[in-house]
C-alpha cells in the first residue's frame, strides 16, 4: 500500500493504522489518548489528519483509521491546524489542570479567551485510556460512570474497588496525571486502597504490589513470578550468558 504523508512516500500494510504508519516513518502527529500498548480510543481527536482519496478530502482520526488503499495524507494543513486549535480550547475547558495542558499550551498557546465554561481544577479529560488499560489487564476495576456532563471515571459504587490490584496502570497511562497514586513506606495508595509493595530480590527497589503478584500467579499457576526489577532481570540474563560461555570454554 502506498501512502503519501506530507509529501513523503511511506509503505504501509493493509489495515495498518495511519498513526502507526506515520510514527514508523518518523512523521509526528500529536496524540493525547493514545498508548502503543492499547487499541485506539479516538476520543481526544488531536490525531486528526486530512486524507485525500480519489480526489476527495476527509478529516479522520489517524489512531483508528486503517489504511485500505493508496491515499495522500496531510497532517498539518491549515484546516487541520484550525480544528486542532479548537480542540485544544475544548480540552482546556474540560480539564485545565491536567498535565497534558502543559504540553498543549507550549505548542498551541497562549489560548484566546475561552468562550466555553472552564472546569477549574479538573485534571481528567475523560479520554478513557485508564479504563481501557484496566480492562486490558483483565481486572476491570474502574469504568466511566454516568453520562453527558455528569460522566466521570470511578470504581463501582464509588467505593474502593475490590477488583483493583494496585498495579497503577491507570495512573501511568493517564495523560492528565489525574489519578492519584502515592507511595510511602512500602505502601501504595490508589483509589482509596492501600497495597503492600514487594521488593526486587536483586536491589531492593519496590517493584509490584502483593495483589499484583497474586494476580499473575492466579493467571498462570504453573509459572513463577520473578521478583526482579527490569535492571536486575537484564543483569541476570547477561550473567547467565557469561556463565554459559565460561562453561563451554570460550
Amino acid at each position: 500500500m502506498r501512502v503519501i504523508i506530507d509529501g513523503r512516500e511511506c509503505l504501509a500494510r493493509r489495515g495498518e493504522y495511519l498513526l502507526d504508519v506515520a510514527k514508523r516513518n518518523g512523521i509526528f502527529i500529536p496524540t493525547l489518548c493514545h498508548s502503543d500498548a492499547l487499541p485506539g480510543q479516538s476520543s481526544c481527536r488531536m490525531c486528526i489528519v486530512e486524507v485525500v482519496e480519489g480526489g476527495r478530502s476527509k478529516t479522520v482520526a489517524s489512531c483508528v483509521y486503517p489504511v485500505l488503499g493508496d491515499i495522500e495524507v496531510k497532517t498539518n494543513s491549515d484546516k487541520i491546524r484550525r480544528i486542532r486549535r479548537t480542540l485544544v480550547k475544548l480540552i482546556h475547558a474540560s480539564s485545565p489542570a491536567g498535565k497534558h495542558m502543559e504540553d498543549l499550551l507550549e505548542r498551541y498557546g497562549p489560548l484566546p479567551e475561552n468562550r466555553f465554561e472552564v472546569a477549574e481544577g479538573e485534571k481528567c479529560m475523560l479520554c478513557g485510556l485508564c479504563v481501557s488499560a484496566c480492562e486490558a489487564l483483565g481486572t476491570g476495576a474502574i469504568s466511566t460512570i454516568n453520562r453527558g456532563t455528569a460522566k466521570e471515571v470511578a470504581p463501582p459504587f464509588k467505593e474502593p474497588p475490590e477488583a483493583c490490584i494496585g498495579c497503577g496502570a491507570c495512573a501511568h497511562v493517564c495523560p492528565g496525571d489525574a489519578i492519584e497514586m502515592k507511595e510511602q513506606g512500602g505502601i501504595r495508595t490508589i483509589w482509596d486502597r492501600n497495597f503492600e509493595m514487594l521488593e526486587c530480590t536483586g536491589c531492593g527497589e519496590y517493584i509490584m504490589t502483593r495483589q499484583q503478584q497474586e494476580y499473575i500467579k492466579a493467571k498462570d499457576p504453573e509459572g513463577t513470578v520473578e521478583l526482579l526489577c527490569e535492571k536486575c532481570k537484564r543483569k541476570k540474563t547477561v550473567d547467565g550468558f557469561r556463565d554459559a560461555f565460561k562453561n563451554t570454554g570460550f
Partner: protein
Amino acid sequence: MDCIKQGEGTTFVREILDRYPKEQRFLLAILQDIQKRCGYLPREALELVREHLDVPLSRLYSMATFYKALSLKPKGRYAIKVCDGTACHIRDSRGLVDALEKLLGIGPGETTEDGRFSLETVNCLGSCALAPVMVINDVYYAKVTPEKIAGILRRLEGEDDGDI
C-alpha cells in the same frame, strides 16, 4: 417493590439469569428484566449478574448509571417520568417538573420518603405529538399542564390502597 427487602430473596434474579445463555450480549436485557421486576437494580442482584456472566462489576455499574431506564435506587410505586425532549421542552415540560417538585417535595432522580412517588426526566419518549408528555408507570398523560398535575396525583392516591 423492593423485592429483596420484602423477603423474596434473590431467587427472582436466578430465574431471570436462567432464561439467558451465559453470554455478555444479554447483559442489557438481563438488567432490564431485573429493573422491570424490581423497580431498580439491587446491589445483590448486580453481584449475581457479575458472577453469572463473569463481567467486571465496573461494567455493570457503568451501564446502570448510563441508561436512564436503569436505576440503582428504588423507584416509587408510582414512577413519574416527565419527557424533556425537544418538543416537550418547548411546550414547557420544565413547568411540569416545577409543579411536581412543589407538590411532592422531591427533585428529579429522587423518591418520596413513603416510597410512593419517584420523579425523573427523560430525554424523549417518542410521542412528540402529545407534548408535553408525562408517563406514570406505563400510563401516558398527554398535553399536560402544570394545573392538571395535582388532579392526576390525587386520582392516583385514591387508587393506591397501599399494597401495589
